[in-house]
Structures are given as structure tokens and as C-alpha cells.
């Protein structure tokens, strides 16, 4: 990796003064570091050599026994820049990239007008210019190896891991059409017409042959995922268009790779037989499918590995990255499509890995991917600018302008023509506006440049001209199209992305429709899309999930998993907002459960609905308890290098599920007890009498705002906080709230004459105390003979 920062001359910084205070400060900092160290490095090295020599001497002389040995002072401070210069310079570039990104967002108006990618290229140009002004040789920063092996994979993995699978699969036909046929069309149209133009007299390009032209066409025709991501993420276009353009840019990699190798191979021979074409098609299939296969294998391996990581949570995220990178490298090793391998790997592993790893690891994966990809992206654009300054250029007006025009024309023709065919098959037709955005969003980027850079100078004498044309085309698309696409989207009123959270209803309906449509398909006797999808899903559930997901979670249907996730997220939000007193209902709503709970029920239904009602309440109360009790527990965790401090809500799912199971057991016991017709007929009055005699007891549990019971959990309670067991927690709660629980519970015990076995008495009693304590509804359950007295239905104990 030959990244080198040359000395910045102080006079160069003057041009930067105009670029605003922040950039100046940053550059001075950068320059200062480089200057000092760079300047210091050479004398220092010689000094060190001297010292080294001296040491040797001393050693020899010391053995001999000394005489004229002049003692040299021990070097307290020495500088050895060369020793660290490679990692140091890499860090400097990364720092520059990150600070630039930071800087752009501190200037609010700038980023709304100019896309970040443009600004970064400008920065790259300036940095390259500075280096050149300093009289240094501009380093070949955008080296193809560096680009393909280090910078590109994070971006693609990020895209693959977070690929919205559903829209992607729904539009896979269209995407493939654009990616394969569209790219082929572009390559041959641009390449062929360029060759024709080159043959015109007076362009001085007659030495350009057909195959290099086609090679150039195949390099320049591929839409670039990095550029597309950079621009499309800023314009917030609707999901359909986003996935169309982005999906195309990902999947056209295989076509580009094959075309590139094919033309490179034959530009020597100069002859292409029909056999070669057939081989090319076969090669395409192998490259794309092979890439996907490699990615899938690694994805499954990663998922399988993550099954066993529950004891070493800290290294969990690493597996995601390492396996994906291995997939990419393995694919590249066979000249398969590395991009497709990465996409497949990310998409395959995600659902299983997500189910296995802890919530924290998941966050880590997310952040790392985002961080790496954004740094890579920034570096790529900066390097593009630097490389522009660096490269030898051969400017040919005809070639460059014809390239730019042809690229635009072929893109428009390709998109319009293909959409005409695709629209016959699509349910949601692509409108003219959509077509325009798809055509206009076809940005070219650094992949094209790197491919051009890879060309052999001896084989392709016109390489420099190609590179110049490629750079011009990249600049044209990124600057002109990238900057104008946002106003155009506004002007055309293209539908934007809706930032809606995925709601539970949406999930229910999606699933409902899936099953409904599968059913209808089966009734029709037609084995279509849904039929196979359903088959695949069932297979996945039955075998694959069992192998790849640890513990019991594989049994969880998607809907339940979604619900848990949502519940979990809200619980965390609640804790973060310092709540715990607020009602932790599953939905952030102003409507509470009692609004939708049927009030006037026929007795038969009411009988069934009543325990459910209390259960809902119970659930809320349990959540409050759980959050507060776990907080105390967390404090007592000691620090350990290999474990992270426990999250109040998350010790991995196992813990959670264990607790949940205990809760369910408890609940079952409780409801067993509840459904025992234990309530004596006079119990309501007795209860009321008790209430009247001791009204204060119920103020403890009075609702804070809207009739919802809240509990003041005494966090500083002297109970030993390591009680993980929910049952214990319950019992302690019961014991702590002595004022009410004990007495009530005891009373009731006497009143109702519990029918309990001695062994389980403790638990049930405690459970009941807890319940009676916390939950007016439950209390009513205990005391009410039946659901018939509706006057007490809602808040029986609140005065």
C-alpha cells in the first residue's frame, strides 16, 4: 500500500484560507504533524545510525577493556519516522477523510446544495494539487489492489447486510434486466459507436481498434454502487426506485467482470469466434452463480459459528466481518464476482446471526459496518480527486466528449427500451418519471476508474486516454447528474421515501396476505411465486433454522419475533428516557388497553375475557419490576475484560427467555389459583370493607395519571440484589411492601381457605401476594365471584 503524504508547503495553506475556518484549522494541524515529523525524520535517522554504530563500538570496546571510549549521552528522545510511516500515513488519510466528513456537516447549507461526494472529490483535487505544488510525486493512491481489497468490501458488505430483501426479491426481474441486458447494451452501444467515431478522419484516433473500444465500453457502462449510494442516500427517493438503481449497480458486477476479462483476453488475439461468445455466456453464469454460491457457503458458516458464541460475546461481531471478507477474497481468487459473493453472504447470514448474537453485538455490527463503509466511501472519493491530479492525462476532445454523450444516450435508450419490455410483466408499472430517475441515476464511479487503472500499458497504448475519459465521465455523472438530481426529484415530485416505523399491523397484514395468496394460488392449482416462497419458508423453518439458530428461538415465528423485537425496543426507549413510571404498553399510544377492551360482554365471553384483562395489566407491572430490579443487579457486576457490562434489559435472549418461562410458569400457577372458585360469596363486600378500613393502603398503588397502577420500587432495598430468579424477586417485592401485602395476603388466606399443597404453598402465596399487591384487577379477580357486577369493572379500588 503505497500511500504517502508528502510535505505540504506552507504557501499551499494560503489557498485553503478561503475554504473556511474549520478546514484551515484541520489542515494546519495536518500539515504541522507531517511537517514536523517529515522534516525531523531524515536527520533523526542518521542520528540513530550513529547511535547504533556507537553501541556496537561500545560493545566491542567494552569487551576489550576500554581505553579511549568517549561516552555518548543516552538518547532520551529519538525520532524514527520511517519506522512508522506507512501506518502513520494511512491514519492521516483516514483522519483527513473523517475530518472532512465532519466539516461538511458543520456547514449546514453546503451539504444541502452539493452532494458530499462532489465535495470530497474537490478536497481530493486540492490535496493532490498541494502535493504537486510541494514538488513531490503524487502517490498512486487509488491503486487497484488497495481499492478492490480494502476500500470496496466494507461498502458492499454494508449494502448486502442491510439489503432490504423483500423489495429486492419482488423486483428481482427488473433489476436483473437492467443489470444484465442493460449493461450489455450499454457496453456494446458505447464501445461500437466509439469505434465508429474513431474511424472518422481528422480525429487522429484511427489507431484505436474495435476490441479496446469494446473493453472501454464495458468499463464505462457499469453503474457504480458507491456513487449511487452516496447520491441516493441524500435524496431520499422512494424505496422502489432506490432498489432498482442500487440493485442494478450491485448485480452488474458479474457482467462487467466477464466482459472485462473477455475483451482483455481477446484484444491481443484480435479475433473473436462464435465459440468465444458461448464461452463468455457460460463464464458469465459461472462468475455470477459461483459468486453467489461462495457467498452463501460463507454466510451459512458464519450463521453456524454464531450459534456457539453465547459464552464469548465480545468477539461475536468479528465473525460477521471475517467470514464476509473471506467470502469476498475467495470469490476474487477464482475471478468470480466478489461483490455478488459479499451480497449473498451478508443477506444469507443476517437473519440467523441476528437471532443468535446478543443485542449489543448486533449494535456493534451495525455501527462497525456503517463506520467502515462511510470512511471507505469518503476515502474513495478523495482518492479519486487525488488520482485525477496525479495521473498522466491524454486529453482528446473528440474521444472524451463522444464518451460522455454516448454514455448518456445509451443509458436513456437502454432504460426506456427495457422498461417498455419490463412494464408488460410488471404489476406496478414504471412511469415516465421513474424511468427518468433510473436513467439519470446511473452514476459511474471509482470501480470504472480502478478497472481502467488495471489495464496493461503495453497492451493498451491508449490507456492514459481511456483513463482521462473515464475520469471525465465520472466527474460528469457525479457532479452534473449528482448535483442536479435532487432539484429534479423535487421538481418532478417523485415520490419520496416514507420514514415510517414498521408497525405491528403492517407485519400482521403482510403475513396474512402472504398466506392468503399462497392459499389462493393453491386453490387455482397454479404453482407460482408464492407457492415456492411458502415451500422455501417452510423448509427454512423446519431444517435450516434448527441447525443455525441456537436454543429455542428457531421455533419462533416471524410475527412473534417481530413483536418481541418491537416490545424490546420500546422497553429500552422507556429506560433510556428515564421512565419506568410511565405505562410500558407495547405501543406508544395515548389509548390504553381498556379503551379497546370490550366492556359489556355477555357472561360467557366475559368469563373468558376477565383473566385476560388482568393478564395484560400484570404484564405491564412485571415489566416495570423487571426493569427496576435489573438495574440494581447491574450495578453489582464487576469489570471483566472479556465481558461487557450487562445491559439492564439484555443478557442475551437465553436469560430473557428463561425468565419468561418462569413467568409463564408462575402465571399458570396463578391462573390456576385464580380460576379455582375460591371466592366466597361475601367477598366483595368484605373487600370493600377492608378498603374502607384502610384506605391508605391503596394510595400506594394509585395511578399516577390515567388510572394505571404504578409501583414505587425501592431500589435501595436491603435485599440481596443478586436474586436473578424472578420468583425470588417477586417474593421479595411482596416482602418489602409489608404495609399492605402481608396483611392482605394473610387475610385472604384465612378468608378463602386456599387449597394448596404444602410444597408449592410458598410460591403460590408469594405470587398471589405480588399480584394482589400490584394489581387492582387481579385483586378483584380474587374477590369477585363473577363478572356480573359491572359497576366495579374498571377501577374498583380507586376512590
Amino acid at each position, binding site marked *: 500500500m503505497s500511500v504517502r503524504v508528502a510535505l505540504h508547503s506552507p504557501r499551499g495553506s494560503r489557498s485553503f484560507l478561503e475554504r473556511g475556518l474549520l478546514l484551515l484549522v484541520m489542515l494546519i494541524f495536518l500539515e504541522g504533524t507531517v511537517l514536523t515529523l517529515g522534516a525531523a525524520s531524515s536527520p533523526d535517522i542518521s542520528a540513530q545510525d550513529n547511535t547504533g554504530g556507537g553501541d556496537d563500538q561500545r560493545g566491542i570496546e567494552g569487551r576489550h577493556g576500554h581505553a579511549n571510549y568517549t561516552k555518548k549521552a543516552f538518547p532520551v528522545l529519538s525520532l524514527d519516522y520511517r519506522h512508522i510511516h506507512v501506518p502513520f500515513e494511512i491514519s492521516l488519510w483516514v483522519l483527513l477523510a473523517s475530518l472532512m466528513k465532519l466539516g461538511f456537516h458543520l456547514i449546514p447549507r453546503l451539504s444541502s446544495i452539493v452532494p458530499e461526494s462532489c465535495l470530497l472529490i474537490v478536497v481530493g483535487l486540492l490535496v493532490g494539487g498541494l502535493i504537486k505544488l510541494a514538488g513531490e510525486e503524487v502517490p498512486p493512491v487509488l491503486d487497484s489492489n488497495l481499492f478492490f481489497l480494502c476500500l470496496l468490501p466494507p461498502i458492499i458488505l454494508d449494502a448486502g447486510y442491510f439489503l432490504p430483501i*423483500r423489495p429486492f426479491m*419482488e423486483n428481482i426481474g427488473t433489476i436483473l434486466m437492467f443489470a444484465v441486458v442493460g449493461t450489455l447494451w450499454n457496453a456494446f452501444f458505447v464501445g461500437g459507436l466509439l469505434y465508429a467515431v474513431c474511424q472518422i478522419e481528422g480525429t487522429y484516433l484511427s489507431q484505436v481498434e474495435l476490441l479496446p473500444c469494446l473493453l472501454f465500453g464495458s468499463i464505462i457502462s457499469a453503474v457504480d454502487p458507491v456513487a449511487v449510494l452516496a447520491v441516493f442516500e441524500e435524496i431520499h427517493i422512494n*424505496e422502489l426506485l432506490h432498489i432498482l438503481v442500487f440493485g442494478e449497480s450491485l448485480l452488474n458486477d458479474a457482467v462487467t467482470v466477464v466482459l472485462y476479462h473477455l475483451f482483455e483476453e481477446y484484444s491481443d488475439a484480435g479475433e473473436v469466434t462464435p465459440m468465444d461468445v458461448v464461452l463468455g455466456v457460460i463464464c458469465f453464469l459461472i462468475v455470477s452463480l459461483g459468486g453467489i454460491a461462495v457467498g452463501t457457503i460463507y454466510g451459512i458458516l458464519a450463521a453456524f459459528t454464531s450459534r456457539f458464541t453465547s459464552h464469548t460475546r465480545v468477539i461475536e461481531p468479528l465473525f460477521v466481518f471475517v467470514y464476509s471478507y473471506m467470502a469476498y477474497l475467495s470469490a476474487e481468487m477464482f475471478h468470480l464476482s466478489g461483490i455478488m459473493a459479499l451480497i449473498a453472504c451478508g443477506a444469507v447470514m443476517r437473519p440467523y446471526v441476528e437471532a443468535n448474537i446478543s443485542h449489543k453485538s448486533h449494535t456493534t455490527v451495525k455501527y462497525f459496518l456503517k463506520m467502515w463503509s462511510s470512511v471507505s466511501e469518503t476515502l474513495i472519493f478523495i482518492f479519486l480527486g487525488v488520482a485525477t491530479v496525479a495521473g498522466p492525462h491524454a486529453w482528446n476532445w473528440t474521444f472524451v466528449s463522444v464518451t460522455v454523450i454516448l454514455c448518456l444516450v445509451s443509458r436513456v435508450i437502454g432504460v426506456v427500451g427495457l422498461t417498455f419490455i419490463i412494464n*408488460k*410483466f410488471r*404489476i*406496478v408499472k414504471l412511469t415516465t418519471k421513474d424511468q427518468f430517475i433510473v436513467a439519470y441515476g446511473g452514476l459511474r464511479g471509482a470501480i470504472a476508474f480502478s478497472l481502467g487503472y488495471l489495464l496493461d500499458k503495453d497492451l493498451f497504448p491508449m490507456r492514459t486516454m481511456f483513463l482521462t475519459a473515464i475520469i471525465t465521465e465520472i466527474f460528469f455523472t457525479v457532479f452534473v447528474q449528482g448535483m442536479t438530481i435532487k432539484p429534479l426529484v423535487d421538481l418532478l415530485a417523485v415520490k419520496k421515501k*416514507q420514514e*415510517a416505523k414498521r*408497525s*405491528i*399491523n*403492517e407485519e*400482521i397484514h*403482510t*403475513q*396474512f*396476505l*402472504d*398466506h*392468503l*395468496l*399462497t*392459499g*389462493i394460488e*393453491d*386453490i*387455482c*392449482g*397454479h404453482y*407460482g*411465486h408464492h*407457492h415456492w416462497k*411458502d415451500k422455501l419458508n*417452510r423448509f427454512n423453518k423446519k431444517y435450516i433454522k434448527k441447525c443455525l439458530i441456537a436454543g429455542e428461538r428457531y*421455533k*419462533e*415465528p416471524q*410475527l*412473534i419475533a417481530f*413483536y418481541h423485537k*418491537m*416490545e424490546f425496543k420500546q422497553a429500552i426507549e422507556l429506560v433510556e428516557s428515564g421512565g419506568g413510571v410511565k405505562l410500558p*404498553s*407495547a*405501543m406508544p*399510544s*395515548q*389509548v*390504553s388497553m381498556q*379503551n*379497546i377492551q*370490550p*366492556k359489556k360482554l355477555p357472561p360467557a365471553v366475559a368469563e373468558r375475557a376477565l383473566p*385476560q384483562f388482568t393478564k*395484560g395489566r400484570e*404484564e405491564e407491572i412485571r415489566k416495570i419490576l423487571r426493569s427496576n430490579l435489573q438495574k440494581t443487579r447491574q450495578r453489582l457486576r464487576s469489570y471483566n475484560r472479556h465481558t461487557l457490562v450487562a445491559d439492564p434489559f439484555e443478557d442475551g435472549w437465553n436469560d430473557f427467555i428463561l425468565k419468561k418461562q418462569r413467568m*409463564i410458569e408462575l402465571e399458570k400457577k396463578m391462573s390456576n389459583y385464580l380460576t379455582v372458585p375460591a371466592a366466597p360469596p361475601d367477598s366483595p363486600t368484605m373487600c370493600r370493607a377492608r378498603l374502607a378500613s384502610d384506605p391508605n393502603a391503596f394510595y400506594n398503588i394509585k395511578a399516577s395519571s390515567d*388510572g394505571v397502577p404504578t409501583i414505587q420500587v425501592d431500589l435501595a432495598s436491603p435485599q440481596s440484589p443478586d436474586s436473578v430468579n424472578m420468583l425470588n424477586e417477586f417474593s421479595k417485592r411482596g416482602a418489602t411492601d409489608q404495609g399492605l401485602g402481608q396483611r392482605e395476603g394473610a387475610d385472604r388466606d384465612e378468608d378463602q381457605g386456599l387449597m394448596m399443597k404444602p410444597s408449592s404453598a410458598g410460591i403460590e402465596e408469594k405470587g398471589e401476594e405480588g399480584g394482589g399487591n400490584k394489581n387492582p384487577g387481579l385483586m378483584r379477580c380474587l374477590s369477585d365471584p363473577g363478572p356480573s357486577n359491572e359497576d366495579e369493572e*374498571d377501577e374498583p379500588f380507586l376512590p
Partner: protein
Amino acid sequence: MGASQSARTEHEFQDLADRTGFSLEQIGNLNKRFRQLSKNEETLSRQDLASISALDNNPLRAQIINAFFDKRNLRQNEAGTVQVIGFEEFLMVMSHFRPAAMHITEEEREKLRREKLRFLFNMHDTDSDGTITLEEYRRAVEELLSKAGTIGQETAKAIADAAMLEVASTTRGKMEPDEFYEGITFENFLQKLQNESERATNLERRETERRKRRIRPWPLAILMDS
């Protein structure tokens, strides 16, 4: 027999095609399937549909079969169910899964959309009183999770409750504690699908329409939609 018979069925088919919007080929295909399911009878009974083995694994099996025998879906403005359906009724139900034609006005499209959503709504509203109550919603979610074993049944209620809360809060806004939300009406249903998650609607529509397209084998599709 041959000529007059086929002429008669052709005439009938043309008539059906005009009413349901299917093309003649599609009606032919569906007729073949109908005969196969009903074992060459004129009418189709519940047992015939229940005997489709591919449906065994579908959690919504009962609901789907019910939809075919629901009078509301047969474009008769009455509630209740029928015991057997003829080919025409079969087509009527199937026509809910047909994609919108290429060139129709926005109003027609909207009408079609409403009809499709109405079909969906009717599947949830089992007692045909015009609202999806909490009980009905719970049952629907339970059905959906019926293949998931015990975990499913335990969570189904919580999910349905959460979903109902969500609907209530988006359609009603703030509610007093003593107010009562009796259930999702069809208007709420539309509103919910339109405002709160437009994406879902699109997805649903795309999904539904995609499905409808699948009714016919795809090579035919090229010929027919052009």
C-alpha cells in the same frame, strides 16, 4: 354435441368475462381447475376445497375457504354463508385477485382497490357486523400463528392487543379512559392503510396484484396485457 356445447360455453364464458374482467383463456383455465376440484360437478362444496392437500399447511385454510362461501364476497348485499357455489361464484371470488387493467381512470382504480380491501376486511370481520372487534382480531392473529404451537397461542393475544391499540391510537387519537373503541370499521381500515403506512398499502397492493397476475401462466401474460 360438440359444436353446440362449445358454442354455448363460449357464449357463457364471454358473458362471464365481461362481468368479472377475466380473459377467456383465464376463464378456461379456471374452469378446468373448477371441474377438477368439484370432480366434474356443477357446484363446489367446502369439502372439495378442504381436500386440497396443498392447503393443509396454510394457517389461514379455514378463513380462505370461508371467503369462498361468504355471501358478501359474491356481490350480494346480504350477510351469511352459502353451502355450495357454482362456477360463476367461484370466478367472482377469484376476480378479487385480478390485477387492474392497464388503462382505467383513477376513479375506477380507486373503486377496484376499495373492493379488494373490502374483501380483505370481510375475511377479518367474521360476524359481518361491519367492525373488526378485538375478539375477531385476536382470532385472526391466532389463526395466523396456529402453526407455531404453544408459543404462538400465548403471544397471539398480546400481538392482537398491541395491534388494536395501534389502530385505535392512529384512528382516534387521544381517548378518555371511559371511552370505548368498539373495533375497526371499514373506514378505519382504509384510513389506516392509507395514512399511517402508505408503504404497507403499496406493498399490499403490489403483492395482491402480483398474485393476481400469477393466476395465469406467465407466457400467456405477454399476449394478454399488451
